[in-house]
């Protein structure tokens, strides 16, 4: 201790500057304030909360035994429709996202206004929830799978286009320059210069998005956009909880199957 006291006074070492500490402190303050204000002002009805254990017990009692007899009639076709919505939606999104992704890549289209326009399209596609896209398309095309497919497609364009554009921007210029030096036209530079470099990224983006879309298409039916969500909505409105249980099990199985398919395909193809 005595040694420490006699040592020359070095300036205290701090990991962060005063500005950085202040910024962090402001973030902490805002977070705490947001939590406190939210917790105080949120409307929670205590009677409902007190009732919860009873309601949960009631829920499970009504869900059991699961009503398997409905599978043949309505659930199977709705489940297949969900897969079709997810798959067709993903395919359409891939088709639409390819040109937008190319336009967003600065090394392919060295024209910043076009890049920004393409990025604006991608951002607006992503910032609208797929349920909102579904609402809009139900308004235009009426209830059904067509609205669901388009909702999935339009929500996915932003995701696929953004990742594909980034993959293109990361592609090495060497092979492309070699092709250009040999006098290759634009299409050949694309097919033999860029495509082999971004192909693995492209397929993994497509598979990843398909997996997400299977999950998302299961809920689109709640707003009338087809698939198993419609069956879920019907069962909920009739309070047929045993049928709801069947549908939930079906959704879990389809999500797990989709994940297995994606991992297997990724292992073999990419």
């Amino acid at each position, binding site marked *: 201790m005595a040694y420490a006291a006699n040592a020359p006074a070095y300036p205290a070492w701090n990991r962060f500057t005063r500005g950085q500490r202040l910024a962090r402190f402001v973030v902490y303050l805002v977070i705490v304030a947001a939590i406190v204000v939210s917790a105080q002002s949120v*409307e929670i009805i205590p009677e409902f909360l007190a009732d919860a254990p009873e309601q949960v017990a009631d829920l499970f009692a009504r869900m059991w035994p699961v009503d398997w007899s409905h599978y043949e009639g309505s659930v199977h076709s709705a489940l297949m429709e969900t897969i079709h919505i997810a798959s067709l939606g993903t395919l359409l999104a891939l088709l639409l996202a390819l040109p937008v992704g190319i336009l967003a890549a600065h090394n392919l289209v060295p024209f910043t206004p076009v890049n920004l326009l393409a990025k604006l399209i991608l951002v607006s596609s992503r910032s609208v929830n797929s349920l909102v896209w579904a609402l809009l398309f139900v308004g235009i095309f009426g209830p059904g799978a067509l609205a669901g497919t388009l909702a999935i497609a339009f929500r996915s364009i932003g995701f696929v286009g953004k990742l594909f554009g980034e993959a293109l921007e990361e592609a090495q210029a060497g092979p492309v320059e070699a092709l250009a030096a040999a006098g290759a036209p634009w299409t050949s530079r694309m097919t033999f210069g860029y495509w082999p470099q971004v192909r693995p990224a492209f397929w993994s983006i497509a598979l990843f998005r398909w997996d997400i879309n299977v999950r998302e298409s299961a809920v689109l039916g709640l707003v009338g956009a087809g698939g198993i969500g419609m069956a879920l909505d019907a069962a909920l409105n009739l309070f047929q909880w045993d049928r709801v249980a069947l549908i939930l099990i079906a959704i879990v199985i389809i999500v797990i199957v989709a994940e297995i398919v994606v991992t297997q395909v990724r292992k073999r193809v990419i």
Partner: protein
Amino acid sequence: MTTVAASSDPFPRSVWPKVAGILLAVYVIYACAQMEISWERVEIGLHNAAHFFSRLFPPNFARWELLVKGLLESLQIAVLASTLGIVLALPIGLAAARNLMPVWVTWPARIVIVMARSFHPVIVAILFVKAVGFGALAGILALTVASIGFIGKLFTEAIEEISEKQVEAVRATGAPFASVLWFGVLPQVFSRFIGFATYQLDSNLRNSTMVGIVGAGGIGGTLFAAFQRFDYDYVCAILISIIALIMIGELLASAVRAIFIDNATLRDFFRRGATRERHLEED
């Protein structure tokens, strides 16, 4: 001759892409037929589209009080669900990390995480609406479950990828387990954790505007009710507000990332607005 012929095509094409293309085309035709999607329906829809958009615009902000109330409730749901979700996900994610915990701890934790991730938040919200009634609480609980699934999974992966050296060094000093975590593990995963947490807040904000569709509070209920009443100009106003809220949320999230990951100061934001962004891709 044969050698020349063999090398004349420097890019030999495989047959498989063609086969796959044909199979894909057959599938598309089959699926469209199954779902009764046809060009006529698209055409009829496109005729409707003009009518639909003319009713969307101009947006009608006349009932802005209801709109603001719904947006605030969505914001509350997002904040509280993220807080609860993060607080619960950290111990679960830690328990699921195979490099720090024994097998009998990791398995139950992993099952919890997988179960939390298996349903879309809106479906979880349906179940919570039944359990705790209509209103914000159901939305908070549903999004808490979603947050546990997402943050728990990524936090586990982050912990499993840390360097063992620092952990061993802290352990070698005879530090208890809590100190190993605090000085050996957490500093290594902190910046990634900020990434997940801000991303999850962003994602919860998006979903909190949607859980209202099934009665779990927030602006979604107002949106769906307006939509079912064909009150399209109000729908448009709600959509614009939701998108604005989400964009503000995204800006705040990137500001937090800049402060904690890139060590930015408040002055940096005024000086050069744009900061280096790190994105976790959204789902």
